[in-house]
């Protein structure tokens, strides 16, 4: 900071008495703006801290080492495969898997092996220090097993490999991720070409009259409509009128495409407008036709902007929940869809469902899901910035 020594009037031709209060008010303003920035950052930090602290435990899952008996009887009635005292600490879902384990490894037949079994969700929560519903007996058993090293927290691959489940410890984000991917592919497949072509027509070919101005105003308004209305639109047109399968990525993608279209059109138009007119003038001056000028000279220059706008639109669509709820993608979907016409769910919808489940474990799964969603969104935005920088033509 430069010290201002404007104090003396003598031999200082630059002395200006009004400067003191002007500098002061300038400093005040700077403090205001800095304070606002600090507030925003504080909220962001608080939010991130909350999510991360709630979600990180979900990436570890409790496993217990128990002896498992594999024989004809236990395969039919898996509850018999382990000792009674373990029944409440081992996950039911894991027990269901026993026949498949034998199928994969027939040498297990007739043996009793110590296996790392997925622990029940209450055990997991107990170990993580959260609210639990374990009986004292079971708690004592777990503590004992822990002392003997028979209890471990391993990395939670189930979160990424499994679909939704009513059994908390067995629930994962996989089917929602696949559903999101399918939905977004459909969205982009429809929204991108239609949006860009519309923008090109409006910007390069259409005359500037009342009609096109009305269209422009309407497109801008469409971008601001509450997204749930698009859900109703999708319900009415795609499901009722066209009879497409409800809750499928196809319908979800088409609905989101309608929603993303205005955004793509607006950002593509801006990108096209940003191309200096001198390029077009040069093209016309050489005796080129409109299509030659637009396709070969204007579009390549506008492309980074169009791409950025589209990726941002895509990122926004990825986080949309309301319209998809209306068209039914909120159902319980344990398996990932294999085609676009099968019932599916998307990540935000899955998180909405989990947030409403009673079991304690779902809280950390929801938070972990939010972290995954945020990571994807940030990556998409980073991709947008990278692609923009890569394709930007230097002037």
């Amino acid at each position, binding site marked *: 900071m430069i010290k201002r020594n404007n104090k003396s009037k003598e031999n200082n031709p630059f002395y200006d008495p009004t400067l003191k209060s002007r500098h002061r008010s300038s400093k005040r303003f700077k403090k205001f703006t800095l304070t606002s920035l600090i507030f925003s950052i504080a909220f962001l930090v608080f939010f991130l801290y909350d999510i991360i602290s709630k979600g990180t435990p979900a990436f570890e899952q409790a496993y217990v080492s128990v002896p498992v008996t594999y024989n004809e009887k236990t395969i039919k009635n898996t509850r018999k495969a382990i000792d009674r005292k373990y029944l409440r600490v081992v996950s039911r879902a894991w027990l269901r898997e026993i026949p498949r384990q034998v199928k994969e490894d027939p040498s297990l037949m007739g043996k009793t092996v110590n296996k790392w079994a997925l622990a029940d969700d209450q055990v997991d929560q107990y170990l993580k220090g959260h609210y639990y519903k374990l009986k004292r007996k079971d708690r004592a058993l777990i503590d004992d097993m822990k002392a003997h090293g028979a209890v471990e927290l391993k990395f939670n691959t189930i979160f990424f490999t499994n679909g939704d489940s009513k059994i908390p410890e067995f629930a994962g984000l996989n089917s929602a991720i696949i559903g999101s991917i399918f939905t977004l592919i459909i969205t982009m497949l429809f929204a991108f070409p239609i949006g860009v072509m519309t923008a090109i027509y409006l910007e390069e070919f259409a005359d500037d009259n009342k009609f096109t101005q009305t269209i422009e105003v309407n497109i801008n308004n469409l971008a601001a409509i509450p997204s749930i209305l698009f859900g109703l639109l999708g319900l009415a047109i795609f499901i009722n009128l066209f009879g497409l399968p409800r809750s499928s990525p196809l319908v979800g993608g088409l609905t989101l495409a309608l929603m993303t279209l205005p955004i793509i059109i607006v950002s593509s138009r801006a990108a096209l407008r940003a191309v200096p007119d001198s390029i077009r003038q040069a093209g016309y001056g*050489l005796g*080129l036709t409109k299509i030659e000028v637009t396709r070969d000279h204007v579009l390549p220059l506008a492309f980074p902007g169009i791409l950025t706008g589209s990726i941002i639109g895509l990122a926004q669509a990825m986080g949309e929940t309301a319209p998809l709820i209306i068209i039914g993608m909120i159902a319980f979907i344990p398996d990932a869809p294999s085609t676009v016409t099968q019932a599916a769910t998307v990540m935000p919808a899955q998180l909405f469902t989990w947030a409403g489940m009673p079991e304690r474990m779902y809280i950390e799964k929801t938070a972990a899901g939010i972290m995954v969603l945020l990571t994807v969104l940030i990556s998409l935005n980073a991709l947008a910035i990278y692609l923009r920088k890569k394709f930007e033509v230097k002037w």
Partner: protein
Amino acid sequence: MSNKNSIKIDVNELNLWYGEHHALHNITVPLYENKITALIGPSGCGKSTFLRCLNRMNDLISSVKIDGSVVIDKKNIYDKDVDEVSVRKRVGMVFQQPNPFPKSIYDNVSYAPLKHGQVKKGKDCNELVERSLVDAGLWDEVKDKLNEPGTSLSGGQQQRLCIARTIAVKPEIILMDEPTSALDPISTEKIEALMLELKKKYSIITVTHNMQQAARVADYTAFFHLGKLIEYDETEVIFVNPSNKKTEDYITGRFG
């Protein structure tokens, strides 16, 4: 004025309106072949508008209405059966701001001729590119970097690239809209020397804010004021013995 020159563009009673505003009033002027004609005048006098009438670039603006004739090779280019795109192939244009396409130097020059079907890709095209760059006085500086983007050149080089691009299409007439206003004095001088060379093969019409430039390079000078053509004569006459007082006031700086 000597009449042994042949007329390349014969403009007769040309009027232009931007919507309601009458921008050009009854312009009649013969523009001669293989000569440089300069259009001078204060800002807003219509000289750029007039220039753009000569290759129908004003057609791109929807509010423009044009009356009168611009005859090139005995055909009025504003006749209904004349395609404006074909006019622009014969009447090329160089703009005030150098505006090379964001492509390589080679592509900048070759794009339009390929599209017009004047050359095929390969040896013919390479020869055309080289010849155009030689004629524009740029070949030596770029012959080793034809694949670099056109925008990597300096301002003066970019403008010469635009000139090369324009002459690659083999026009007969080149229109220049203040081609050196955005350049430094040395680049300006290079372009002026280039214009003197080019006039051997082409007819050049140039708009310039800089009277001294018109004095240096032009054979004929036309003085415009408020959309009217005030005086048109050999440059030497305009700058030593102008007939019209308005012309003299402008040239001597007594305007306004």
